[in-house]
């Protein structure tokens, strides 16, 4: 690569408003999410935990979206593959690991919900469930509260392209469009709803639906975190300026099976998966940082070593942490439940 091309690339993260430090931080978070995901898969295969649902291949877009938001004021409504997203808005791998092991100290649900069902009031990560897309109207309701109270924040909600067919997606979009609410509605289009490929789910393009609800929609390459960052950041500004919602369709590929209970080669070929692995945004972003001269193989090695330590510590901690007491299953049905009152 000649010097001119290199300088042009260097400018890219600056152009979208990222400092060198932030760009590197984004990369670190993506790698952390990837390594966390791989570790949890191993834990499941080793019989240490029961279940894992993976986000591998989706981290660049997830992390970029998280970085484009304001961690101090915005509300986050992730879906179940969003490890990268929740890590980028403040959750720690220890907290995620506590959830994976279903331990009492898990801040997401106190060991009640499946992993991937995030929630933390402190971090403004809104508690989620398993029936898909119910979180879209919630994000709209939170944005409605922002508008009613005249407060400057946005909500960002994610979901898969399969989920985008649920009524709650459409009802939520329409409500947000009518009231011009500061909500960012981001589809992580990973091409598969468990085993059903995109051409059997969608007659058109998700992004085009935005027009029907009266607000802008953007399709973006989810493997390009700088582009995702730019689009989400602009959507946030529109929201804060009273210009209403934005629909984002981030294109990506689910490199893992749907979950640890799924054999994906029953419905797709290894060749197809390998072809998409070539498009993986993480090594590409690493290459970008290397070429920009702000990252080195030495730093990469250090990062991987640090993450290994972090994951080891988190795994040991979560493994040793106590389960909730059986009787605590009776608590928190209603406000003020006293132990044993049920």
């Amino acid at each position, binding site marked *: 690569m000649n010097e001119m091309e290199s300088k042009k690339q260097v400018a890219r993260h600056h152009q979208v408003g990222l400092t060198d430090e932030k760009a590197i931080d984004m990369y670190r978070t993506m790698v952390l999410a990837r390594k966390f995901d791989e570790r949890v898969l191993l834990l499941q295969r080793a019989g240490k935990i029961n279940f894992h649902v993976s986000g591998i291949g989706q981290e660049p877009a997830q992390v970029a979206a998280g970085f484009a938001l304001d961690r101090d004021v915005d509300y986050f409504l992730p879906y179940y593959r969003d490890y990268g997203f929740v890590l980028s808005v403040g959750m720690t791998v220890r907290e995620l690991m506590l959830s994976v092991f279903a331990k009492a100290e898990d801040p997401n649900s106190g060991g009640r919900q499946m992993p991937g069902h995030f929630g933390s009031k402190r971090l403004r990560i809104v508690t989620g469930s398993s029936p898909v897309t119910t979180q879209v109207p919630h994000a709209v309701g939170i944005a409605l509260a922002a508008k009613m109270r005249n407060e400057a924040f946005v909500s960002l909600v994610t979901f898969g392209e399969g989920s985008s067919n649920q009524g709650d997606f459409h009802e939520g979009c329409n409500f947000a469009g009518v009231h011009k609410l500061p909500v960012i509605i981001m589809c992580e289009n990973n091409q598969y709803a468990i085993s059903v490929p995109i051409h059997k789910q969608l007659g058109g393009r998700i992004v085009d639906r935005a027009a029907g609800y009266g607000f802008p929609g953007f399709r973006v390459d989810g493997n390009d975190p700088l582009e995702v960052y730019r689009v989400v950041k602009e959507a946030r500004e529109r929201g804060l300026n009273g210009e209403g919602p934005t629909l984002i369709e981030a294109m990506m590929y689910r490199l893992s099976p749907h979950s640890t209970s799924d054999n994906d080669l029953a419905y797709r070929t290894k060749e197809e998966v390998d072809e998409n692995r070539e498009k993986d945004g993480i090594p590409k972003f690493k290459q970008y940082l290397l070429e920009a001269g702000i990252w080195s193989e030495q730093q990469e090695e250090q990062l991987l070593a640090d993450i290994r330590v972090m994951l080891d510590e988190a795994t040991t901690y979560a493994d040793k942490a106590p389960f909730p007491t059986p009787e605590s299953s009776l608590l*928190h049905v209603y406000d003020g439940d006293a132990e044993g009152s049920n």
Partner: protein
Amino acid sequence: MPVMEYIDALRLAMKEELERDENVFILGEDVGLKGGVFTTTKGLQQQFGEHRVLDTPLAESAIAGVAIGAAMVGMKPIAEMQYSDFMFPATNQIISEAAKIRYRSNNDWNCPIVVRAPIGGGIFGGLYHSQCPESVFFGTPGLKIVAPFTPYDAKGLLKAAVRDPDPVLFFENKKCYTLITGEVPETDYIVPIGEANVLREGDDITVISYSLPLHFAMEAAAELQEEEGISAHILDLRTLQPLDKEAILEAVRRTGKVMIVHEDNKTGGIGAEVAAIIAEELLYELDAPIMRVCGPDVPAMPINPPGEKFFMLNKQKVKEAMQQLALY
């Protein structure tokens, strides 16, 4: 103390809560300028503005879901379902989301919404403007369910529901709107959720009910007292979930003969649970089998007048059953 209709008591409760707390708002179909199809919210948008009495798109899952989102960040939404028959599109939001938010987040988040929905028939509403859907939601832990009968309770329970930190389904009876009048203080008071109320003291038979059928039971009780000297004890459940077990047991102990009355169909209704509670706790104190007088097990009531009349309870049906129980 002013005497007012049930519907006016509901409107007064909302007006007072909107005045009291700026986080309270109403959302639903036609709740704005029109004031709702029954005029329950009439005048409120004019007083409080479009943002606090919000006309929504015609989409019930969004009405519930948006309310849930707003509630999770500190708002106190009152979501109106135009008819309880149209709540079913919002059922996933109510059962999978609202009911479980506190539990699934281990008490981190909560969801203080009120879902108001008119129940009941007798207005020639046919299958889909007449249903009593309480049993669909009853038995879902995490939800509170109230169904007032008197205007006093309508106001007090609605205000309690708005202030409750958990989701409350508020089933108001559309036939009661203008049929039932009563004294309603203009002062700020609440009726606590979870407490039943004795409407009439008596020693021969106990009638346990809620909502409109209490009107029939009260009239029947007065006639039976006068005509045959039968003394009926009548308990208004007021809150369906959680049931006031102590009040139920006390009311049954009073007479040893109990009848449960509701318009919702018999199988799997609230009456089944009330009967089970009585059977578990007081079986050997009963002097007669537990009796249930309910809507028939058909999908919903027909619109043709004889069919609707056949489905609906009335004073005569309830009176005959009460007589039968007294004579057992």
